[in-house]
């Protein structure tokens, strides 16, 4: 199947809008959240218009349909990451909640004072703060794999840290600022060799290239729907069955129980054990539709397209005097270009770009420690997805020249 960019762009109604009269949208903020194709919007609307009911215990037709749609979506999402079974795919609110789930259940039950968790200096806040909180509560040690000046993880330092006998290595597969794609498979192999479990933050990787949990042999994978063209408010945690079964439940309430008595309860089987209360049903349906949509286009084709656009963007950005792009070269980089423009605060860059309909993000992108490392308060960030075009990059570059004129 060929990658038909024109057709893909037609799948996304929002890409047809003008930011203001005569100014079409150039959306370069997919790393924050991706736009949604008709396939997702239609699936969610059809669910509400036709099948809406609460799931799992209803006997009537609508409840049956809603339950089927909710569970079919789980199967689609599980297949999308090559999970052996949909029972290993737990719905959460987002990547952040998935990581918190592991921190609150597995880690709280298994880790004791003095135990070590290895993280990296390029984590965003959702893979830092849950561990800060648990470390304070349980007196755990946190160590960080350093980031090199080129924006890569220092794997020699990683090997040294592994000698300290960590219990968990939790890291991002792709940095949301530097764009660095980390050698996850090798890092997981090394962690296992050292006796540690692994948690992979897939918020940026799962939407952009094929992620196979079995090939990676990862213990936990956390990701969100909204970054892969699905709705906000839903994400997933994949885990190995033996781990998930041994873990205590997360939130308590309906659906996560097998039996409830006045003074006790028995938790439900996987995956329901971790899913308390009425879930985001329409969002689950949209999540599944998004996986189908991306699979239909092909993750390899999407990755190839983003690679080409990102390479072009790096080339164009680097020719602008005063622009500095952070992170590794194109070989190790996903579709992210975080940059600074000399003498102009990133917020001003983003604001002036918005004048021409160019949507980029400015700030520390929820990765404040990483910005501290590079000694910059903030960056502007353009990010790319399957619907990004070379024209988008050209509009970005024209916009940056305009910023330079304002502040010249």
């Amino acid at each position: 199947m060929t990658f038909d960019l024109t057709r893909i762009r037609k799948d996304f109604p929002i890409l047809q809008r003008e930011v203001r009269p005569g100014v079409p949208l150039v959306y370069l903020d997919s790393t924050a959240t991706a736009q949604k194709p008709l396939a997702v919007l239609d699936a969610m609307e059809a669910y509400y218009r036709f099948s809406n009911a609460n799931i799992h215990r209803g006997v009537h037709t609508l409840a049956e349909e809603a339950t089927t749609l909710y569970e079919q979506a789980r199967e689609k999402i599980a297949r999308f990451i090559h999970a052996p079974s949909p029972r290993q795919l737990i719905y959460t609110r987002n990547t952040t909640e998935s990581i918190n789930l592991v921190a609150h259940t597995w880690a709280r039950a298994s880790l004791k004072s003095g135990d070590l968790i290895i993280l990296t200096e390029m984590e965003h806040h959702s893979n830092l703060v849950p561990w800060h909180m648990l470390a304070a509560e349980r007196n755990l040690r946190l160590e960080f794999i350093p980031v090199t000046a080129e924006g890569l993880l220092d794997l020699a330092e990683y090997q040294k840290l592994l000698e300290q006998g960590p219990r968990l290595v939790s890291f991002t597969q792709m940095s949301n600022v530097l764009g660095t794609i980390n050698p996850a498979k090798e890092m997981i192999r090394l962690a296992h060799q050292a006796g540690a479990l692994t948690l992979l933050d897939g918020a940026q990787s799962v939407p952009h290239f094929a992620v196979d949990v079995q090939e990676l042999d990862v213990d936990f994978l956390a990701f969100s729907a909204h970054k892969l063209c699905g709705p906000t408010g839903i994400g997933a945690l994949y885990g190995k069955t033996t781990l998930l079964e041994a873990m205590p439940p997360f939130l308590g309430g309906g659906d996560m129980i097998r039996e409830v008595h006045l003074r006790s309860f028995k938790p439900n089987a996987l995956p329901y054990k971790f899913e308390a209360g009425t879930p985001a049903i329409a969002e689950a349906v949209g999540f599944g539709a998004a996986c189908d949509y991306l699979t239909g286009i092909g993750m390899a084709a999407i990755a190839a397209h983003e690679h080409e656009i990102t390479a072009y963007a790096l080339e164009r950005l680097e020719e602008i005097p005063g622009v500095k792009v952070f992170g590794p070269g194109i070989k190790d980089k996903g579709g992210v270009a975080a940059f600074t423009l000399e003498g102009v605060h990133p917020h001003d860059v983003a604001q002036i770009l918005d004048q021409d309909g160019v949507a980029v993000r400015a700030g520390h992108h929820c990765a404040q420690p990483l910005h501290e490392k590079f000694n910059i308060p903030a960056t502007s960030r353009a990010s790319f997805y399957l619907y990004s075009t070379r024209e988008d990059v050209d509009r970005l570059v024209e916009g940056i020249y305009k910023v330079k004129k304002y502040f010249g």
Partner: protein
Amino acid sequence: MDDLYREIIIEHYKNPGYRGKLDPHDFSFADSNPLCGDHIEVTLRVGAGGVISEAAFDGHGCAISQASADLLLESIIGKSLDEVKQLTKQDLLDLIGLDLGPVRLKCALLSLKVLKAGVYGLGAASDDLVD
């Protein structure tokens, strides 16, 4: 939108009249806007009758935050501390002549927040100061 970067803002950003740190000073306060890393420190000298005789700001951030700080300090020279305590969000917006969305409003209001927290002698700058 062009208005947002009209000459007065760019001019006060590039050539601020009140940048620096007064040492010694009678009042000082500093705070940051965590969203974008804007940081502003204000130092004041107060003369007879509680009237502000000198003011300076230090820090870094976007053009809106830094130009707002400069325009604000320019406006308070010769004013009493009580008058500064009465300054509102609208006073600052009138001063810079901008109509800002919720995100950039924080940038513009940082200097006023810092100034008022300093003059009130508060331990922390609260958003209530600029509501």
